[in-house]
């Protein structure tokens, strides 16, 4: 028996050795081939392999290897780096990346999606200041320094924001067909209160259509309507994006109470989707199927240019307020180098290319010319013949995710000058007084956890008008206090004061 086991293990070890020998052989021959082909390029030797993970919001693209090959052709020549892309479905994104961290799996670059601060606190990302100085000129020249500064956590940069709309303005998006049918004068829509007449007209004319919808699944009507800087997490906000940097409890403000009253009134008059607090359907789908008319959103140039979102022509109007930049808008998508990375310098070089190399940007964002898109005219592209969103091998349609989308083409149907407009929009936006401040909830995480529950319990029913604010709002505030919101606000104020002091 013993000898048998011995033999078995020998066999196993033998085969393992053989396998590893094979694979290392492969690698070296690979490297040899590439160095042959790119004799002129100075960085010789084996290319460094980088693993780059990113979330995808659709099915796994078929042509990942083609994309990698196209990328590697450029990267091996320029920086002697071989990139392995790892698209992860967004529903598994958090879990899978967390697992990769806890098991120390190979991962060099990844974006944080709305969890930048948490990733920093948990030590997932490494400081970038030095690397940016050494290898990141493309990044620093592409980004407004104020936006890069917004990425500082306690003075250190851990991530680089992607170039997208860095500001937004409150607005409403409506079904174009209905707007035209009732000849709604959209220039009159200056504030949220002005909506009432429009909603009433729609209600009267289209009895089966809910005039006002929640902004997204599981969100309230007011989810995207912001008159304050939420300072990372809504627990303690800066009203009017200024308030002399004095943090207040948004849910206790007069303004919030007024908004809730308005919502309640609209709900009772049937101007709001009656199922709003439990709605599980994407508002655009509701609009598409003629069950809804409009919803509030954070508007920006891409939305304001009359586009057909999800196949439904929409008319988007911005209320007459200035567009504002807050930290969350900038830090919602941040590329960082992970602690798992063995080659942070190379990773930074590749990140730099993502922000400065047009070809890399286009390959990552749109794929391969002739196969996944064709240039129509200038910088406008469309599907090649016979290809559409359903059968394309690479159609992520998430330009905001990959570094510098301003380098990339725009899709047919969008404004060809879109990027110029976005740039102008970003430059013109008012900057919140707390722009660059990020709240670290770790010292109060026990409270934050309890408050999270209170918020889910009350916010949605209140902000959809489903319950009476006169009765429920006091209870909401009381429970928030019991859960310790005052402690969180005090902590936030403390951090904000420290941040202000450090800035001066």
């Amino acid at each position: 028996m013993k000898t048998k086991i011995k033999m078995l293990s020998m066999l196993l070890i033998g085969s393992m050795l053989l396998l590893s020998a094979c694979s290392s052989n492969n690698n070296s021959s690979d490297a040899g081939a590439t160095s042959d082909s790119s004799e002129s390029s100075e960085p010789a030797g084996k290319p460094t392999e980088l693993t780059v993970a990113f979330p995808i919001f659709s099915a796994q693209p078929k042509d990942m290897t083609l994309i990698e090959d196209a990328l590697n052709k450029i990267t091996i020549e320029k920086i002697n780096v071989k990139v392995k892309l790892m698209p992860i479905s967004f529903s598994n994104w958090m879990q899978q990346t967390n697992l990769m961290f806890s098991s120390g799996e190979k991962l060099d670059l990844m974006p944080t999606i709305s969890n930048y601060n948490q990733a920093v606190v948990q030590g997932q990302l490494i400081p970038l200041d030095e690397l940016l100085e050494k290898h990141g000129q493309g990044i620093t020249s592409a980004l407004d320094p104020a936006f890069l500064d917004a990425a500082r956590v306690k003075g250190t940069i851990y991530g680089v924001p992607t170039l997208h709309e860095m500001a937004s303005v409150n607005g409403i998006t409506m079904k174009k067909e209905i707007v035209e049918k009732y000849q709604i004068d959209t220039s009159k829509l200056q504030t949220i209160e002005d909506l009432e007449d429009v909603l009433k007209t729609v209600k009267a004319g289209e009895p089966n259509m809910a005039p006002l919808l929640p902004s997204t699944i599981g969100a309230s009507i007011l989810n995207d309507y912001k008159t304050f800087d939420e300072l990372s997490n809504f627990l303690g906000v800066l009203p009017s994006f200024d308030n002399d940097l004095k943090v207040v409890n948004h849910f206790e403000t007069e303004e919030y109470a007024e908004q809730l009253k308005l919502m309640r009134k609209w709900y009772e008059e049937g101007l709001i989707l009656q199922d709003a607090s439990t709605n599980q359907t994407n508002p655009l789908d509701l609009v598409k199927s003629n069950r809804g008319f409009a919803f509030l959103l954070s508007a920006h140039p891409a939305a304001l240019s009359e586009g057909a979102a999800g196949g439904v022509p929409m008319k988007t109007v911005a209320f007459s307020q200035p567009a504002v930049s807050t930290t969350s808008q900038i830090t919602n998508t941040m590329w960082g180098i992970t602690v798992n990375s063995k080659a942070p310098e190379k990773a930074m070089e590749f990140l730099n290319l993502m922000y400065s190399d047009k070809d890399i940007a286009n390959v990552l964002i749109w794929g391969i010319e002739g196969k996944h898109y064709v240039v129509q005219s200038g910088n406008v592209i469309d599907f090649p013949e016979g290809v559409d969103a359903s059968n394309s091998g690479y159609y992520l349609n998430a330009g905001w995710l990959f570094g510098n989308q301003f380098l990339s083409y725009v899709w047919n149907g969008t404004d060809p000058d879109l990027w110029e407009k976005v740039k102008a929009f970003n430059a013109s936006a008012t900057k919140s007084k707390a722009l660059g401040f990020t709240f670290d909830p770790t010292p109060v995480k026990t409270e934050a956890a309890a408050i999270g529950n209170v918020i889910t319990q009350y916010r949605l029913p209140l902000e959809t008008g489903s319950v009476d604010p006169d009765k429920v709002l006091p209870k909401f505030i009381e429970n928030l206090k019991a859960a310790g919101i005052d402690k969180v606000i005090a902590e936030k104020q403390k951090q904000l004061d420290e941040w202000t002091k450090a800035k001066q």
Partner: protein
Amino acid sequence: MSVRLENVRKKIWKFSPLYFMMLPGLAYLLINNYLPMYGITIAFKDINFAKGIWGSDWNGMQNFKFLFSSSDAYLITRNTILYNAAFIVIGMTVGVGTAILLNEIKNKLAVKFYQSALLLPYLISMVLVSYLVYSLLSVNVGFMNKTILPALGIDPISWYNEPKYWPFILVFVNLWKGIGFSCVVFLAAIIGINKEYYEAAMLDGASKWQQIRKITIPLITPIVIMMMMLSIGRIFYSDFGLFYQVPMNSGALFSTTNVIDTYVFRALMQLGDIGMSAAAGLYQSVVGFILVILSNYAVRKFSKDNALF
């Protein structure tokens, strides 16, 4: 002493093939169930990925605090235990009852049909169940509000905003979904009962009711107790789908639908703190473990044969 040792050695030798056959199972148990247990330490740590799991700082019971600090602590514990207790009692009674009824049906085809019909909901995902419930209870288009309530002359009810109905809805949904499975288990136990008992009873003129009470129920008691113990061990866990999906995560219903699992989920969704989630999981399993030991002890007290261990 040495004789006894000798005996032990002999025994081990005698049963060595059996021990050998046990190895794969043991290895599986060790790798899958015991090795990952080092993760328990996460519950007591301030996790920092730069330092790794072992290197992260210990932070004592800090991670557990959020479970008990809020005013909801009592509510979620009460909901979890009461719901599970209701599920166990009602589920067992109805399960045994249905199994006995099914056993009495003599038409083989009909039995098969009923059994499959009962089992079908068990195989449906909770997400789908939640939409089935939604189609009944939706404010605008729900079957209840559109058809049943008007027929009875009752005003439409905003189901997803009225917590008072939900204890009944949830118990019913759970019963509807789980009954098929428990019924199959009990039916298997009933079928296993020797038919001679019934024949003898019939000869003595026992009625159907007497047969059920004096033969069927006593003979399936061990299975019932085993099933009960298993559920008691999980009394601090709750079916996440049932409590999260079926009420559509409606905030207005939290007073009757929030349980430990949903509370933890909601609390940590934004924080994403794995230390705290590990703490919650550990707390649940420790309490579950204690409850199993205690209930087994209780069972032992009054009927030793029926105890699990």
